[in-house]
Structure formats: C-alpha cells, structure tokens
C-alpha cells in the first residue's frame, strides 16, 4: 500500500499551484496502517503551510479520528532540544567548572574514606564483619584463576622475548634473572592490579551504583548508618589485604611460566633456573613490588567505590559508573607505578 502513496516532494508539487482544497477518496481502501497516517500528517502540514482547506470526510473513520488526536495539540517548537553552539570561552569555562567539581568530589571522597579508616582503627566503625569476609572471598580466592592465567602467560612471554635477545650473547641462563626480576618488581603487581581493576573495581562500581539507583544507600543514610563505613570500608579493607597476597601468587606463577619456557626450549635445567632466580631476586626488589601492591589495592577499591557512589539515578548511569571505574582505576595505577619508579630510583632500590 505504502509504495502507491505519493512521496513528500511530489505531494508538495501537486498541492502547489491553484489548489485550494484537499479532499480524500478512500472508498477502495480496505485496511490501513501507520503508513497512511504519516502520509496524512504530511498532507496536513503542507495544507497548513499553504493555508488550504482540508476535507477529511472521505477518509476511513478511524483514520480521521486519529488525525484529530494527532493534531489536537500543536507541535511544541521551543523544547530547546537543539543545542546552540556556545562560544569557546563558555565551553572552556564550563569544562573548568566541571573539572573543579570533579576534583572536589574526589578529595571529599578520599577525606571521608580516611575518616572511615581512622574510625575503624579506633574500633568505632559500623559495618558487618560478614560483609567483609564476603568481599575478601570475592576479591581473593575467586580471583585466583584469572590472576594465575594472566601471570603464567606474562612469565612465558617475558621468557620468550628475553631468550631471543640473550641467545645472541650466549647468555640464555639470564632469562631466569629477567623473568624473576620483571615479575617481582613490576609485572606481578601491575598485571594483578589491572586484572583486579577490571574484575573487582567494575563490580564495586556496579554494586554501589545499583544500590544508589534503588535508594538502598539513601535508606542507610536515613538510618544514620554511614555508607562510607558500611559499604566502602569493607571493600577497601578487603582489597588492601588481598591484593598483596594475589601479587605474591602472581609473582610465583609468572616465574613458573618462565621456568616452563626455559626448561622446554632453552636447554636450561630446572636446578639452574631455580638457582639463578634465587640469586637474582633480593629483598628490596621483592618488597618494592609488594609495597606498590598495597597502594594499587587502595586505588582499585577507591576508584570503584568512588564511581559507584557518584552514580546517577538511572540504569544507564550504572554502566557509565562501571566503565569509568575501570578507566580511572587503570590510569591511576599506571601513574602511581611511574611515580614509584621515580621514587625507588631516587632512594636506590
């Protein structure tokens, strides 16, 4: 049916010169749908523009009634949905204000989190220990498989990359040093933190965001229970304790990855590899990775919870919060790692 109706341009032409009245002959029409209605609405618009009379008596009854409904309320023109292009200064200004507010929010959050920690160490924080253990399980034991997989592969890759270069000097045994040092100093901590950021940071943001949308956080507040203590504190505590443990695990698995490559493809024996590794890794190197991991734990938990608490009140906002938690988290982890690299360099670890 629709292809037989004239299109908009043709309609405009036909109704152009000399026509003063539009009427319809729909005697042959047996059934119709919204296709007819859009056509009619176009007729009405053109007729109104050219001030033509419209005679709707020829239309099927339902269609005429629907047209009356559709034209009963005139089109609202000033809904203001078409964004005006603002001047450069306006946009610069509003971005600066938004940035300042964002920074303020972050500092407020960090301040409140610090107070919550202080209250915890003073033994006055209100939260349920059971919640803490649940988060510990989620961020600890349940993360082991993915951390193991990633770490093993990173160890493996490091060994291959190192082997190609070291073979040129006939020094393949140093693959053990390379893998061991890289894992404990950098890769173990940073890969685990990034995995946890994608896994747990996003989950925190989504959990808290959903609680915000369903007014669960409001319900805590009106009962006088601080959401910072009740929801954020257990998450931060759990992650600060679990991330270093996961990093230890990751270091170990990564070195095993290197060991597998060395023993199977590089003619290094198991004993040689283990001996070199033990000789290469000293305590300062080992601890530099662990110290970082505590801070990474704080970063992952804080960004996840921050974005969750900032969440707007729609389901789309929860998605935005989760995405933003991961992006902020990973960025902060890399920046923190760079800062640590500089500091460790200065104090000579």
């Amino acid at each position, binding site marked *: 049916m629709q292809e037989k109706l004239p299109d908009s341009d043709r309609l405009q032409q036909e109704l152009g010169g000399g026509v003063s009245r539009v009427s319809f002959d729909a005697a042959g029409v047996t059934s119709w749908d919204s296709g007819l209605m859009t056509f009619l609405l176009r007729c009405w618009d053109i007729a109104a523009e050219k001030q033509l009379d419209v005679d709707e008596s020829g239309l099927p009854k339902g269609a005429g009634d629907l047209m009356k409904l559709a034209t009963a309320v005139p089109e609202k023109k000033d809904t203001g949905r078409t964004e005006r292009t603002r001047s450069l200064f306006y946009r610069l200004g509003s971005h600066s204000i938004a940035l300042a507010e964002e920074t303020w929010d972050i500092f407020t959050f960090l301040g409140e989190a610090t107070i919550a920690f202080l209250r915890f160490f003073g033994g006055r924080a209100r939260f349920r220990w059971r*919640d803490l253990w649940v988060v510990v399980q989620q961020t600890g034991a349940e993360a082991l498989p993915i951390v193991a997989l990633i770490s093993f592969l990173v160890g493996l890759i490091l060994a291959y990359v190192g082997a190609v270069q070291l073979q040129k000097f006939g020094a393949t045994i140093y693959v053990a040093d390379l893998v061991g040092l890289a894992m404990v100093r950098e890769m173990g901590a940073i890969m685990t933190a990034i995995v946890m950021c994608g896994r747990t940071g996003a989950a925190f943001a989504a959990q808290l965001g*959903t*609680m915000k949308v*369903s007014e669960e956080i*409001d*319900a*805590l507040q009106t*009962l*006088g*229970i601080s959401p910072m203590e009740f929801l954020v504190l257990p998450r931060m505590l759990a992650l600060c304790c679990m991330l270093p443990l996961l990093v230890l695990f990751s270091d170990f698995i990564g070195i095993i990855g290197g060991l597998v490559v060395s023993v199977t493809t590089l003619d290094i024996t198991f004993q040689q590899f283990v001996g070199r590794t033990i000789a290469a890794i000293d305590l300062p190197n080992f601890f530099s990775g662990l110290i970082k991991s505590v801070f990474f734990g704080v970063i992952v938990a804080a960004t996840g919870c921050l974005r969750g608490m900032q969440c707007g009140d729609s389901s789309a906002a929860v998605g935005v919060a989760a995405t933003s938690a991961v992006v902020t988290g990973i960025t902060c982890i890399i920046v923190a790692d760079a800062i640590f690299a500089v500091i460790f360099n200065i104090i000579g670890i």
Partner: protein
Amino acid sequence: MSTEPPKIKVEHLTMAYGSFVVMNDLNFEINKGEVFVIMGGSGCGKSTLLKHLIGLKDPAKGDVYFDGQNFNRAEDEEKLLMLQKFGVLYQGGALWSSMTLAENVGLPLGEFTSLSQKEIRDIATFKLSLVGLRGFEDFYPSEISGGMRKRAGLARAMALDPDVLFFDEPSAGLDPISSRRLDDLILELRDSLGATVVVVTHELASIFAIADKAIFLDAATRTQGAIGKPRELRDQTENMAVRTFLRRGEEEIPEVL
C-alpha cells in the same frame, strides 16, 4: 498539649538543584499524631521535599525543625539521634538486596540497640508479621513480589519504633486492593504507635482516605498552593490549581470521591 511544639515545622524552605529552584518559600507545621500528605502533580518536587525532611538534601534556604530542634544545623551526633526517630519507606522498598528480610529489619536494631541476636530476630519476626510477611524471614528481596517488598520496607521502617514515619508514594505500583490495605495499615499504625505520618502521594483515593492535613505543591507557581483538610480544600478553596487537582480536572465533584 498546646504548649508542645509541632512535631515537624518547616520555615521559609527553598529547595533547589544547583541554580534550578524547585520550590520557593514553603511554610507548614505537622502536629503529633497527624497524617500529613504532600500532594501535587508529577515532577513538582514532592519527593524532593521528602528528601529535605529526612536530611538527604540540604535546603537552599530556610529550616526544618523536629520537636522544636533545628534539623539541618544540628551537629552530627544530634542529627544521628534525630534520624533514629524516623522511619522511611522508599518508593521501591529499597531493601538491601544482599540481606534477607529478617536481616534487613534487624540491621538498624543491631546498630543502635544492645539487643542480642535472638531478641533482634524475634523483633524482626514480629515487625514482619505486622505487615503480613511472617514466614518470609529468610527470603531475599529479589525472591518476593513488589508489593511484598514494599511491606517489608515498611517493617524495616518500623524497626526502631519511630516517632515519625515517612512514605514515598506508598501506592505506586500496587493494585487498588493492596494499595487500600496499605492505607488501612498506615492508619492503624498511626493509631496504635501514636506515630506521626508524612506521606507523599498523588493518589486521590488515598489522599481522601488517610489525610488529616495536606499540602499542595504547585508546579506552576513553584510554591505551596494550599494547606488543609483535603475535603475542605476540594470544596472551598479559591486556589484553582488545588481545586482541579482534587477534582481530577472536573468542575463537579466526581462521584467516586
């Protein structure tokens, strides 16, 4: 009794989101034991007013008093004490989804009283039985229907035997019978607990059934339209917005009301 200050007093309250003013200069008093209804069209700021009363939002201007004490300017410790005298039923119930119904009701008890686990459990069972949910103690909020969640939310709001109960759109999403039952429950609770009740709603049937006093928020003028008994407002007020609202847009009083 006349010397007692009103339970809740709002003075020159202006509510705003940033620079956007929602309502200007609200003034009203709620007496002890009253059922007070905040009514108005959709999006006029009813829920925002509720958020101001329960301290989730700070007023742009003006003050809220409870028992003659300034709520907004109270120190944290005082505010905490005042908050414990409130019970709030949120629109969707807002039960904590990681806890069972009994844990939901029991959490405020565990936080603010020195009762033992067993006593808390008994009280939770009792509060749940008041709203007809006995036997559902160990269900999670996701396992029960919307109406049940709302009733469980009410049980939680009553956990600390509050002086003031706030309801945000209690009948939203309920069928007429359940909504009627909830209205009856509100009145019974008021009578038996002696609580003051503040209800946000735009359900006319509910307004006429429960309200002792009602305030109309007028979205057009951005301030309060009129205050009074809903029936008197409907029959006598000069304010056209209030009149049309209470008569469902008709000039004659609709028969169903």
